[in-house]
């Protein structure tokens, strides 16, 4: 399963790679990283239908996670990828906005990786 992680913090890559060390080793998951909304769209354009799951931060300079979500849901609907939003602000406005734009799930920072792994397993099976 290919997962695209979008966050402007570059260390997120190291974090995910270590957290999912075993899963990556077993080739259960395959992570791709983008460090801005624009980069994420570029990837999606060049690798059509590859990413099944997108994990995106909301607060990023330039294109925000919500704008990215809107574009993904408009442009990539066959089949629509699962999009999970991650934000440091667990506020209802962002949550409502994300839901309205078609986000499949909503996580708050700091990310609870145990819960995230559970969710991923659920999606895979």
């Amino acid at each position: 399963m290919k997962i695209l992680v979008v966050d402007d913090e570059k260390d997120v890559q190291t974090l995910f790679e270590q957290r999912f060390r075993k899963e990556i080793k077993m080739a259960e998951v395959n992570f791709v990283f983008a460090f801005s909304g624009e980069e994420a769209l570029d990837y999606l354009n060049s690798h059509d239908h590859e990413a099944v799951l997108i994990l995106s931060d909301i607060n990023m300079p330039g294109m925000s996670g919500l704008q990215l979500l809107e574009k993904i849901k408009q442009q990539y609907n066959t089949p629509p990828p699962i999009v999970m939003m991650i934000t440091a602000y667990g506020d209802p406005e962002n949550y409502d906005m994300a839901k309205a734009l078609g986000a499949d799930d909503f996580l708050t920072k700091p990310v609870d990786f145990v819960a995230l792994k559970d969710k991923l397993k659920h999606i895979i099976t």
Partner: protein
Amino acid sequence: MKLTFILLIILFSFLRKVLRTKTDLPYWDTRFRYGLMLSIILLSVEVIFPVARPILMWVGELFLFALFFKVITEVKLKAAKPIIFAFLPLAIVDGFENIIEQILPRWHDQIDIIFGIAGIFSFIWMVAMLIINNKQRKALEKERLKAVEKEKEFQLSEKMKAALAIQVEERTAELNEQKNDLLHALDELRTTQAQLIQSEKMASLGELTAGIAHEIQNPLNFVNNFSEISNELLTEMVDEINKGNTDEVKDIVKDVQQNLEKILHHGKRADSIVKGMLQHSRSNNNAKKEPTNINALADEYLRLAYHGLRAKDKSFNATLKTDFDSSIGNINIIPQDIGRVILNLLTNAFYVTQQKAELKNQPAIQQYEPTVSVSTKTVGDMVEIKVADNGNGIPQKLIDKIFQPFFTTKPTGKGTGLGLSLSYDIVKAHNGNLSVVTKENVGTTFTITLPK
């Protein structure tokens, strides 16, 4: 001739008049008045009772010469001396004639003609003397009046002087009081200014709080996450050691090392943010210039300002552009002061783009993308820091006022109107310059120029 009493009467009258005894010498006035009355009475007695004439003659002569003597010798009466001299010949001639007539009546009849002539001469003398004397007296009187007038003028001017002195004193006291009032007011103003500067700092810190929280939250998350993972990795490592998988153990050690570096890095990141915040709020009376990486400073405040605004208005999003000239290196500035200037310009830039974005429903700007950019550049021996926005620009009529204290276009309570004014002062204190270029509906660029 029997002129004794008549002379006395005339003499008394003259004395009183010439000496102005009524006003100047009241003591003598009384005496002269009694003398005058006595002379009149004696004259009447002499006329009515001719028998008493010989005795009265003696009395009269004595009286007359006693008066002469008194006037000549009395200091207070010396002004009347000329009168005495005018009367004296006539009095002597008359007195002599009278005495001769009394003692040697036959003789008298023989030399009657001589007495007559002497009498005429002494009378003429008297009249002439009196006329001259009168003239002199009048001249003197004039002089005296003049002197009195002058004295009056002098006293008047003295009075005016005194009044003036009092007035001057009153004025001085008034002015002193005013001066003290002004000094007091100045003191109060200085205190107020200091308080305002502090509250402006605090206000901008308040705007930053959310940004700071966000900026600290991220590194803290990394610290927590990497610590957790490292712990898990170490547990795993123990297993691998037991299994004897040396290669695997080596890989894990590498990862743990990397994680510890990350923890340190993010810990330091949070640390510098907190330090920056403390510096920002501290009163920097003794802040010193230090070599500072202006690019890092600008970048830090860009993030803080952006997240600060985002925390308040979550729907707002802006494109941040940075173009840093890495060849600048460190420049000598007071970092918290210049940081405050940059933060202020950025806060303004985000504010105007946000304002413009809120008007998005207007067709002309439907495609509006709020953009704020920060750039640095070396220009000769100066460093330029530009903060640009694509907001609505500053109207030409307001451009002259933007650096004035308390000038703000923000609604009441939203801005102190001190931001740009303080920024200007800070840049000037660094021997730099703060300038603005703006175009309506296109945007505004502030340029800070600092010596390298």
